[in-house]
C-alpha cells in the first residue's frame, strides 16, 4: 500500500451518514436485513389481505383488480425484495467471517449492489401511489402484461426489477470472487463451511440466471414503452418466448433461494448436535448437482403450455432426478443428528422443523414433475401449497433459523429464547394450517390467483382453515419483531454462544470492523472445532500483527442508484429530460469513481483491540 495512505486518519463518520456511505460487509448485511425485513412485512401484509378476501366465498374485502395487484406484489416483493435480500444479509454477515476474510472482494460494489436493490424495490412499490400496482402476476405472462391488457403498474415491475436485478447480479459476482480469492490460508474449498459452499453455488446460479430475466424484462420494456412487438402475436410476436425467458431464470431462482437455506440448516444442525456434518463431501456435491440440474428443468413450469409429449416427458424426468441429491441432503442431516447431543434453542427448532416441512414440499415437487398428473395440479392451489412449503417451510424457516443463530454475531446481542420458542410454534403451526389444506383445495378444483370462489363448490372449509392459519404466522412474525426490540436491551452476546465450529465464532460479537486482527490459519473442516478439540483457546494466526488496510466509505453507490431510480421514472413517463438527469448522475458517479484514486486507509497496529484473536 502507498505510504501516505497509512498515515491518513481513519474516517470517522456517524449516524445516518455512516450508514449511507458504508462499504463494510457487516453493516451492509444489516442494511439488507432492515430493507428486506420491511419488504417482508409489506409482502406479509399483502398476503394477509389476500387470505382475508378468500376467508369466505364471494367476499368483497378487496376488489378484483386490487386482488390481482396484491397477488402480483406479494409474489414479486417476497421473492425479489424480501427473501433475496435477507439471504444477502446472511451471506454478507457470515461468509467473509467463515472464510477468515476482512471484507468481501469488492466492498464498493457490495454497497452498490445493496443500494440498487433498495431503490429498485422502492421504485416498484411506489406504483401503489402512482396509478396502481402491477396486476399481471409475479410471472407477468404476456399478453396480459402488455399495454392493451394491463395498466402502468407493469412498467414499475419492468423497471424496478431491472434495477434491483442489477444489484443482485453484481452481489452474486462479488461473492463468487470473494469466496474464490479471499479464503484464509488453509481454507481449501473442501474445508469451507456448508453455508459458504451454498452461498458460492447460489452466487454462481445468480450469475447465469439473472441475465435471462434481464433479457426478458428488456424485451417486455421495449414492448410496453417503445411499441416493440416481441410478445404481441397480432404483430408476429410470440407469447411463449416470455415464459421460457422467465422460467430459465425462474427455476434456478428457486434454488438460488433454497440452497442458502440448506447451508444454514447444515451449520445449525451440526452445531447443535455437536457433530461434524455427516457426509460433508456428498453434501457439497449434492448442492452443486442441484444447482446444475436446476438449469435443466425450467419447462416443468410450462407443462400445460403445449410443448408436446417429448419435451414434457424429458423435462419431467430431469426434474424427478433432483429428488436424488435432495434426498441425500435430508438423510445426511438426519444422520448428523444421529449419535449427537441435540440441544433445541430456537435456531435449532427452526432447523429441525425445516426437515419434515421441506420434505413435504420436496415430495409434492416430485409429484408435480409427473407431467400427466401435473396437468391437474398446474395453476391450482396444489401448486400454491407446494411452493409455499418450499419457500416458507423451507427458506423462511431457514432464514429464521439463521437469524436466531447469527443474530448474536451480527448485533452482539442474544435474542430471547422464550419469545423465540413462541415465535417458532406459532409460525410453524400457523404455516401448516395455512398451506396444508391448500393441497386439497387445488385437487378439488380451485385454480390459483382467483379473487373469490363461488358458494356450493365445497371449497369453503379449506379456505377458512387456511385463513385462520395466517393469523398464526402473523403472530409469529410479530413475536420476532418484539424479540428484536427486547434483544436490543438484552444481554451482550459472547464471542461463541453456541459452542460453534467455524471461524465466525472465533472473533468478538459483533466483530471489529477489520474482523480478524490476524488472519487465522485453517487446519481442516470445522476449523474452530479442531482447535477446541486440540485444547487451543483460539486460532493460530497466519500472519504477524500489523497495520490493516481498509476500504474508504463512499457515497457514490447511493448516488449511482438514485440516478437509475430517477431515470426509471423518466422512462415510464416518457420524459427524457428526467432520463438524462438520472443517467448523467449515474454515469457521472461512475466516471468520478474511475478517475479518483482511492487508496483506502490503514488501521494502525496500536489501534487493534487486544480482545480479538490472541496472537
Amino acid at each position, binding site marked *: 500500500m502507498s505510504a501516505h495512505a497509512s498515515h491518513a486518519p481513519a474516517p470517522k463518520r456517524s449516524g445516518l451518514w455512516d450508514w449511507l456511505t458504508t462499504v463494510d460487509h457487516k453493516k451492509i448485511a444489516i442494511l439488507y436485513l432492515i430493507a428486506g425485513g420491511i419488504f417482508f412485512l409489506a409482502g406479509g401484509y399483502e398476503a394477509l389481505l389476500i387470505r382475508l378476501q378468500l376467508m369466505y366465498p364471494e367476499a368483497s374485502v378487496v376488489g378484483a383488480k386490487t386482488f390481482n395487484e396484491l397477488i402480483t406484489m406479494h409474489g414479486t416483493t417476497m421473492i425479489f425484495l424480501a427473501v433475496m435480500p435477507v439471504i444477502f444479509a446472511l451471506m454478507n454477515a457470515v461468509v467473509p467471517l467463515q472464510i477468515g476474510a476482512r471484507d468481501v472482494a469488492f466492498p464498493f460494489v457490495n454497497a452498490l449492489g445493496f443500494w440498487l436493490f433498495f431503490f429498485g424495490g422502492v421504485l416498484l412499490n411506489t406504483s401503489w401511489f402512482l396509478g396502481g400496482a402491477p396486476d399481471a402476476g409475479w410471472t407477468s405472462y404476456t399478453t396480459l402484461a402488455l399495454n392493451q391488457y394491463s395498466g402502468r403498474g407493469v412498467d414499475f415491475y419492468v423497471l424496478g426489477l431491472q434495477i434491483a436485478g442489477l444489484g443482485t447480479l453484481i452481489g452474486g459476482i462479488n461473492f463468487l470472487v470473494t469466496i474464490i480469492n479471499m479464503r484464509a490460508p488453509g481454507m481449501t474449498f473442501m474445508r469451507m463451511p456448508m453455508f459458504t459452499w451454498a452461498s458460492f453455488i447460489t452466487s454462481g446460479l445468480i450469475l447465469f440466471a439473472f441475465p435471462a430475466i434481464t433479457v426478458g424484462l428488456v424485451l417486455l420494456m421495449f414492448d410496453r414503452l417503445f411499441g416493440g412487438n416481441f410478445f404481441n402475436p397480432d404483430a408476429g410476436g410470440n407469447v411463449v418466448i416470455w415464459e421460457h425467458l422467465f422460467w430459465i431464470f425462474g427455476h434456478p431462482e428457486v434454488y438460488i433461494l433454497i440452497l442458502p437455506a440448506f447451508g444454514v440448516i447444515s451449520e445449525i444442525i451440526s452445531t447443535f448436535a455437536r457433530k*461434524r456434518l*455427516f457426509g*460433508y463431501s456428498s453434501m457439497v456435491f449434492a448442492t452443486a448437482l442441484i444447482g446444475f440440474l436446476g438449469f435443466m428443468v425450467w419447462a416443468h413450469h410450462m407443462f400445460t403450455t403445449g410443448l408436446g409429449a417429448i419435451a414434457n416427458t424429458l423435462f419431467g424426468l430431469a426434474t424427478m432426478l433432483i429428488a436424488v441429491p435432495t434426498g441425500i441432503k435430508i438423510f445426511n442431516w438426519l444422520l448428523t443428528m444421529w*449419535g449427537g447431543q441435540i440441544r433445541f434453542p430456537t435456531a435449532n427448532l427452526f432447523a429441525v422443523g425445516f426437515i419434515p416441512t421441506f420434505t413435504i414440499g420436496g415430495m409434492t415437487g416430485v409429484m408435480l414433475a409427473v407431467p400427466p*398428473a401435473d396437468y*391437474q395440479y398446474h395453476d391450482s392451489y396444489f401448486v400454491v401449497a407446494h411452493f409455499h412449503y418450499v419457500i416458507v417451510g423451507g427458506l423462511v424457516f431457514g432464514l429464521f433459523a439463521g437469524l436466531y443463530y447469527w443474530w448474536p454475531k451480527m448485533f452482539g446481542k442474544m435474542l430471547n429464547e422464550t419469545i423465540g420458542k413462541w415465535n417458532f410454534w406459532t409460525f410453524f403451526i400457523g404455516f401448516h394450517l395455512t398451506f396444508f389444506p391448500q393441497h386439497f383445495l387445488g385437487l*378439488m378444483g380451485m385454480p390459483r390467483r382467483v379473487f373469490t370462489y363461488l358458494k356450493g363448490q365445497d371449497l369453503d372449509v379449506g379456505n377458512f382453515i387456511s385463513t385462520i392459519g395466517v393469523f398464526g404466522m402473523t403472530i409469529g412474525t410479530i413475536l420476532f419483531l418484539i424479540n428484536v426490540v427486547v434483544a436490543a436491551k438484552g444481554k451482550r452476546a459472547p464471542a461463541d454462544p453456541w459452542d460453534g465450529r467455524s471461524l465466525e465464532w472465533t472473533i468478538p460479537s459483533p466483530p471489529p470492523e477489520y474482523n480478524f486482527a490476524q488472519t487465522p490459519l485453517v487446519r481442516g473442516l470445522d476449523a474452530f472445532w479442531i482447535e477446541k478439540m486440540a485444547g487451543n483457546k483460539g486460532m493460530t494466526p497466519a500472519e504477524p500483527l500489523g497495520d490493516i488496510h481498509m476500504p474508504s466509505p463512499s457515497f457514490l453507490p447511493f448516488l449511482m442508484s438514485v440516478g437509475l431510480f430517477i431515470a426509471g421514472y423518466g422512462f415510464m413517463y416518457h420524459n427524457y429530460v428526467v432520463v438524462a438527469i438520472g443517467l448523467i448522475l449515474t454515469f457521472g458517479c461512475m466516471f468520478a469513481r474511475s478517475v479518483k484514486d482511492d487508496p483506502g486507509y490503514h488501521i494502525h497496529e496500536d489501534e487493534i483491540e487486544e480482545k480479538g484473536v490472541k496472537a
Partner: protein
Amino acid sequence: MKGWQQFWRQLSLFGLLALVLTGCGKDELSALKPSGPVASMQYDLMKLSSAIMIGVFIVVMLIFTYVLIRYRKRPGQQGVPKQVEGNHALEILWTVIPFLLLIVMAIPTVTTGFALHKEFPKEEALQVKVTAHQFWWEFEYPDLGVATAQDLVLPVGKKVQFQVTSADVMHAFWIPALGGKIDTNPGQENKIWLQADKTGIFYGKCAELCGASHALMDFKVEVMDQTAFDSWANGMKGVQSKEPVAATAPSAAQGQEIFNKSCLGCHAIAGKGGKLGPNLTNFADRERVAGILAHTPENLAEWLKDPQKVKPGNNMPNLNLDDAQVKALVEYMSTLSVK
C-alpha cells in the same frame, strides 16, 4: 419431550381434520372424482406418486422421530459425540433407493404422457374448437356447423378432440373431473383430448390469470347420451342456419327490438350477429347467467343493468337500460331455446 408430543398431536389432529372436513370435493368439480379416462389415468398417477412419496415421508419421519428422542442432550451428559465423517454404504443406499423409486414412477409417466398427447381425427373423435375470451368461452363444432358459448355440450363415452386458442390473453382450459388443463395461447393452437363417461353437469374453469375477473371465468359442461346430443346438435344447426325467429309475445318482441339494436353487434343469435361476445342462440338452455349466476330472470336483469358489477373488467359496456327495457330483454332472452 412435552413440546414434541404436543407437536405430533397437533400435526396429526389438524391433518386429519383438514382431510375429514374437506373430503374429496364436489363430484362435478373435483380432480379426485374422475369421470373420464383422462382424469382416471391422471388420478392413477397421482395415487401412485403420492403413495411412493408418503412411503418416503414415513421412513424420514421414523428416523427423524427416533433421532430427536434418542439423541436429545440429557442433563449432565458428558463428553463429546463421536465425529462421524460419513458412511459410504449408507450414502450409496439412499442414493440408489430413491433412484429406483423414481424409475417406478417414470415408466407410467412416459406411457401416460404419450397416451394423453394422442391426437384423434374426426373419424374417431368429436372435434371442438375452443376460443377463450376475457372472460368467457366460445365453443365451435366445425364438423357439425354449430357454435355456442359458456355451456360446452358433449356426448357421453365419446372422445373429444379440442383445439384451443385465445382471442386476447392467455387462459387455461380446465375441466377437473374430466382431465387436466391446457393453456390457450393467443396466436397459437393447442390440442387436448378428453372424454366424459358419465352424463350430467361438470364444472369448467379458467386456470391461468387472465385479468380482473379470472376467478369468474367459469363454464359448464353438459354431458348427454349420444341421441340427445345428436338432437341438440341438429336443433342448433337448424336454428343457426336461419335468421332469428321473430318473438311472438308483445313484451318479448319489444325485447327483440332492443336486442337487435343494442346487442346484435356483439352477440349472435341463430344465424345472425357479431362474435365479440358469447353466442346466445340457446341462452335460455344454459346453466348460468354470465357463467356464474344462477339462471333466473332476476340475475339476468342484474347482469344487464350493470355487467361490470358482476364481472369486473369484462368487455360488455353498460347499456344504461331502464327497468322496462331490461324486463323486455329478459323476456326475449328467455325464449332463446333450442330444446
